[in-house]
């Protein structure tokens, strides 16, 4: 039973539950200022984790045809074209719109998005089967042999990361145990595992390994946070427009991310929530309210008998 404590900077009951097997908390620092949008992370992730193809579509949204993280996309590179200068001082790329006016500044933001492996993970909290669990590395992983596809984690995630896989079952799947209830789909939820299998073998995750510019950095979370602060300081000195850290703060609504980011604009520009909060933060009060409602209902129903049978 997980506790109903207020979010803190440390995951609930971790790493105590792991005893001698506990490892330092591992994570990602994704520095979007050096991302070149090559999508090698998306490809490496699919290859290593055998993530199925999920449709080939032209969206017309810059170079992004993946659109969002879901059951079959565990790394997603966002592309944002902006008429804003990359740096507040000095030379910047421009685009000429009209001969009569000054050329407008231009920048192209790219960010490789991934599961945040929250310190207080909504998906893990609400999972009724225990399929979602916290590993010895402090990451959040789905056990696919336990998940029964209840789908509660999907709307619980403040970032819209985890999703149910709706692909047809392969012909060699075992026959349905309950054919009357069966569906022709995988039916379980999937998301980034921070390459749990590779971590167990002492390797870094596939996306970080393949990233050619070290935009995706893998390491011990504490060390990554220090590195990120230094990087931010340097960018501010160089007058980069809008540089900020996102998800590095252990005091935020999810207790800090295990995979955090250096962004160049507001989080919502990248499709990220500006102030994510784990739903369970409000659950103690919600349980009290639910119990009171149940009590009131009991009294109210009994009161319906006042006045006799007619």
């Amino acid at each position, binding site marked *: *039973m*997980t*506790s*109903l404590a207020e979010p803190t900077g440390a995951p609930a009951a971790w790493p105590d539950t792991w005893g001698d097997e506990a490892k330092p908390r591992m994570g990602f620092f994704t520095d979007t200022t050096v991302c070149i949008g090559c999508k090698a992370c998306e490809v490496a992730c699919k290859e290593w984790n055998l993530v199925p193809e999920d*449709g080939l*579509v032209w*969206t*017309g*949204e*810059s170079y992004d045809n993946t659109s969002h993280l*879901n059951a*079959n*996309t565990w790394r997603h590179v966002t592309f*944002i074209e902006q*008429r804003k200068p990359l740096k507040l001082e000095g030379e910047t790329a421009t685009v000429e719109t009209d001969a009569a006016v000054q050329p407008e500044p231009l920048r192209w933001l790219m960010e490789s998005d991934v599961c945040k492996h929250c310190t207080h993970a909504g998906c893990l909290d*609400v999972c009724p*089967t*225990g*399929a979602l669990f916290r590993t010895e590395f402090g990451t959040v992983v789905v056990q696919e042999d*336990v998940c*029964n*596809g*209840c*789908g*509660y984690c999907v*709307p619980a995630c403040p*970032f*819209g*990361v*985890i999703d*149910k896989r709706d692909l047809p079952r392969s012909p060699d799947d075992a026959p349905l145990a*309950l054919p009357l*209830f069966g569906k022709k789909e995988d*039916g*379980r939820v999937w998301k980034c595992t921070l390459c749990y299998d590779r971590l167990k073998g002492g390797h870094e995750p596939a996306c970080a390994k393949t990233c050619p510019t070290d935009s995706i950095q893998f390491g011990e979370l504490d060390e990554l946070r220090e590195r990120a602060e230094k990087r931010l300081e340097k960018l501010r000195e160089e007058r980069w427009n809008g540089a900020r850290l996102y998800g590095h703060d252990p005091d935020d609504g999810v207790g800090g991310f295990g995979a955090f980011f250096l962004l160049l*604009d507001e989080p*919502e*520009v990248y*499709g*990220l929530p*500006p*102030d*994510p909060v784990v*739903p369970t933060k*409000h*659950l103690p009060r*919600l*349980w009290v*309210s639910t119990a009171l*409602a149940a009590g*009131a*209902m*009991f009294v*109210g*129903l009994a*009161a*319906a*008998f006042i006045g*006799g*049978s007619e």
Partner: protein
Amino acid sequence: MTDRRPIEEGRAQTDGRPGGTTEWRGSITERGTTMSSYYGRPVVKEPVWNPEIPCYFFTGGIAGASAVLHVVAKLTGNERLAKSFLYVGAAADVASPILLIKDLGRPERFLHMLRMFKVTSPMSVGSWILLVSGGASNTAAALELLGILRPVRWAAEAVSALAGPPLATYTGALVANTSIPVWSEARDELPWLFGASAAASAGAAAAIVTPTELAGPARRAAVGGAATALLLGQGMERRLGFVGEVYRQGEAGRFNKIAKACTIAGGALLAGRGKRSRAASAAGGALVLAGELALRWSVFRAGFQSARDPRYTVIPQKKRLAKRKGGQ
């Protein structure tokens, strides 16, 4: 196949510029607000639940409220009405787990719900409540039918009456404990709203199947529950403000109207003519049932609409951030 559906509601304006960040014009209630979004795409995921889930909210509510009403009817000596509640509740308790199992992505793994008890997961807590309450009320109904083991039947009735109200209200906590703005922001109302709606539906169901001269308490439960649910729903929509506007739009809006119309008409019929006419009692009960089912459907669809439009996720969060910064 995962969806790449275009955003239907609140389409993003690209400001006439090629690609890039989209600016959102403020909605009516948030006049003048602009925000950025990633091509108008949702921030949080829509639920993946099927129509079985709101139907279960409805049947689970009937089962929970009926269990209490059954015991009180028995204690007050109204055996006929007690029987109505017993069998209505037992039927709802049989339907509930079937609906839930059918919705699972892997139905054959339904027993995994009982692998653990997690207080952080309303679904885990609810599975145990349903097991206890449903098991007890079905045991009671079976023993009543067979006319045997009277002490065991009494124990089963007592257990199901105690577990009944939590069964009816936890589903409100279940949807409120998500990142869907219109559900999560309504966390103070939803358990109460679902409880009141459950009382209304259980009373209405029994009013249909019980002779009018014995169905007084059922009618009062239906009318009282319906009135409470209407007030709570109205209060919830008002308090939610901008986030609550989905209750006036699209499918959620349509079903919200249907719910109110059916509930008011059915409640009035039950209160006005339910005592004298069996036909009015049955029609009123059916209307209240339809209204409460429509209410569950409206709340369910509101969650999808709320998730799909990034404004509902981003604007309240930005306000929260600004408030925190201002307070420092």
